[in-house]
């Protein structure tokens, strides 16, 4: 039977409908589509796709199970490598990872197998059908503390728990999940999916302690004093960056972290929220990453009349996933490329200093850019075109231009070395400058992807296991 050259389309809500609700955009394969898509896999002996996966999921093996309709069997294979399959199936950039290595693509110039979509199907099937089925492993008597319940921390915790370690995860916020709950919006990753994955870890025996800020409530040294033999730091990205242009303190200017946290974690998108957020009007999101796309699409769903993405390079350099950009364009987000803000404008009534409109955003002033010579990152450096200033009328501005590492742990942990940008310095195994202290994810690399954080959590879990075995 000839292989279908096309990847099966992901069923999705229509753009004009989904732009006004927070329901998940991608609806997931049906069992019939999953079977047909699984059938496209050639089950290559050398399995190049596995090398493209940061957590090395045995991709051809799980797809082989799916060809037989053994969804649970497929899930079990995935879960051996990934602690968050339903999350990865949704937010991984498969097109630049596993799927970019698929033989169908590299040799036959066909669409690659829809590995991410199949992964999501198997994980969702498991979560819908196999309630409380995680088997608690035999305890090995060793204790490990994980700081931060985001993708890297949860992965590290899951991997260690499966080996029999007693793991406690400390989370600063009131809910576990990290960026998966405060950052990535409901329409891309429903919060119940994250909660279900966290429950699975708890079934494995992982304790999650919320409301504990390591570096404040407890220090890393106190964790060792309390009997933990190793610590993994997965605190994620920290303080949001601003552009340092005039007007950033006006009312209506948010960091993407704040805007998304208000909407996602604090549920400001609801009809009758307890946490406020500016809704409606004209919104400008500055930046071109996935976080910018999330913020723009969230603003739209909150009722914005118009949402602009302002990005200083061209579409070619725009770092967000293609799929997210396409979704955003379909939903009506307007892209102002090769543009850079120079000032945020605000209302000021000279007659009345008590005018309640004073200090609210009214617009954003930008300059147009052109691409010059490549810079250190290899991307062509944007250069200002003289005299190209223009203004856009907006009510809300969201700055999605990255974050800098959080200083709380560095400041309270003697001997923990960080680099010039504040990222924790680690070896290839994730070991920091402190014995038995490991780190991974955005706290090390600066803002990156969920899956690379998971990969780092996985590497560290392996290293912690080896280290503690050596010691005992």
């Amino acid at each position, binding site marked *: 039977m000839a292989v279908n050259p096309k990847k099966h389309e992901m069923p999705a809500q229509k753009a004009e409908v989904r732009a006004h609700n927070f329901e998940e955009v991608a609806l997931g394969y049906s069992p019939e589509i999953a079977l047909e898509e699984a059938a496209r896999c050639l089950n290559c002996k050398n399995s190049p796709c596995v090398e493209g996966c940061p957590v090395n999921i045995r991709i051809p093996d799980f797809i082989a199970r799916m060809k037989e309709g053994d969804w649970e069997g497929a899930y079990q294979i995935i879960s051996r490598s990934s602690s968050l399959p339903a999350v990865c199936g949704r937010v991984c950039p498969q097109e630049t990872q596993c799927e970019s290595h698929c033989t169908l693509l590299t040799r036959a110039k066909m669409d690659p197998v829809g590995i991410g979509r199949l992964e999501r199907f198997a994980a969702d099937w498991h979560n819908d059908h196999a309630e409380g089925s995680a088997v608690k492993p035999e305890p090995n008597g060793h204790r490990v503390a994980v700081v931060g319940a985001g993708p890297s921390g949860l992965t590290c915790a899951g991997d260690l728990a499966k080996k029999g370690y007693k793991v406690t995860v400390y989370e*600063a*916020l*009131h809910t576990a999940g990290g960026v998966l709950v*405060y950052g990535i919006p409901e329409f891309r990753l429903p919060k119940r999916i994250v909660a279900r994955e966290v429950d699975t870890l708890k079934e494995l025996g992982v304790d999650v302690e*919320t*409301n*504990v*800020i390591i570096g*404040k*409530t*407890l220090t890393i040294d106190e964790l060792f004093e309390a009997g933990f033999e190793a610590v993994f730091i997965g605190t994620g990205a*920290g*303080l*949001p960056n*601003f552009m*340092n242009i005039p007007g*950033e*303190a006006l*009312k*209506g200017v*948010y*960091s993407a*972290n*704040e805007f998304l*946290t*208000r909407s996602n*974690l*604090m*549920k400001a998108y609801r009809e009758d929220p*307890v*946490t*406020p957020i500016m809704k409606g009007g004209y919104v400008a999101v500055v930046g071109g990453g996935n976080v910018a796309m999330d913020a723009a699409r969230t603003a739209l769903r909150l009722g914005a009349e118009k949402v602009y993405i302002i990005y200083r390079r061209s579409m070619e350099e725009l770092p967000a996933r293609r799929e997210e950009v396409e979704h955003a364009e379909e939903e009506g987000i307007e892209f102002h490329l090769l543009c850079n803000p120079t000032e945020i404008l605000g209302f000021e009534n000279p007659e009345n200093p008590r005018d*309640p409109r*004073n*200090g609210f955003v009214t617009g954003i002033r930008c300059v147009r850019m052109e691409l010059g010579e490549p810079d250190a990152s290899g991307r062509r450096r944007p250069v200002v075109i003289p005299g190209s200033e223009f203004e856009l009328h907006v009510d809300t501005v969201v700055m999605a231009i990255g974050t800098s590492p*959080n*200083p*709380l742990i560095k400041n309270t942990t003697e001997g923990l070395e960080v680099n010039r940008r504040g990222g924790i310095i680690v070896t290839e195994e994730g070991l920091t400058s402190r014995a038995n202290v490991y780190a991974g994810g955005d706290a090390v690399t600066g803002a990156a992807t969920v899956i690379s954080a998971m990969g780092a959590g996985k590497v560290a879990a392996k290293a912690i296991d080896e280290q503690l075995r050596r010691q005992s």
Partner: protein
Amino acid sequence: MYPIIRKKILNPTVTQMEIEAPLVARKARPGQFIILRVDEEGERIPLTVAGTDPAEGTVKVIFQVVGATTEKLNHLEAGQALQDFAGPLGTATETEGIRKVCIVGGGVGCAIAMPVAQEFRRLGAQVTSIIGFRNKDLLILEDEFRACSDELIVMTDDGSYGRHGNVTVPLKEKLEAGEKFDRIITIGPLIMMKFVTLTAKPFGVPVTVSMNPIMIDGTGMCGGCRVTLNRNGERVTRFACVDGPDFDGYEIDFDEAMSRGRMYADFERRAYEAACNLFRGA
């Protein structure tokens, strides 16, 4: 959950609660704050620590009922519990090298000023406290301040208790009379802290102000609490949750902070009215 061990009404709008939170109680220093949520669906609000009892494992908070969440909080009684209580956050008030301090508190800000005054007393510094309220009915913590101050001056806006006038009046008198404070620490409404700073400026006394901006996470993630400092001719952004809440009064852009504090005024008023109606109906 975090049980409420004791509750005390300090005045018609200000309540004191002692919450069981042993880890926070062990660590919290004067000037630091906590973040709490009343219930499962609640918003996160910052409250400054008003005292701790590490042996008992309790943390004291004092709050004014100003909105929906504090209204809900005020309806809880001892024996009930808070959903979330996280901290201590922010940096502790700097005390090193300060031998003679003037603490200027206004309204519910006095609840935060009190543990700071107590800390200076404990460290052996000479403490002058000036506390101000709108009227006699709103006066709180007078005995506590008297116990930890070498001198206490109580001011009311309407003259119904203590001296008549703003806190800046006795402060100015003292500075003009040649009192040499190593530091003035002021905690209260932004407008009061602004004028305390302006009063102190001609005398060159360092002023520390305690900022209480809108916050969500309190750990340096959202940036909502950012304040602008004028530092050596440059505008510098700092986050009150990790860099503060204490800042140099001469650097803070108070007008901007006041404007930002009113960002959700409409929303907050409506939510507060809704919460009040809810409790009235119940």
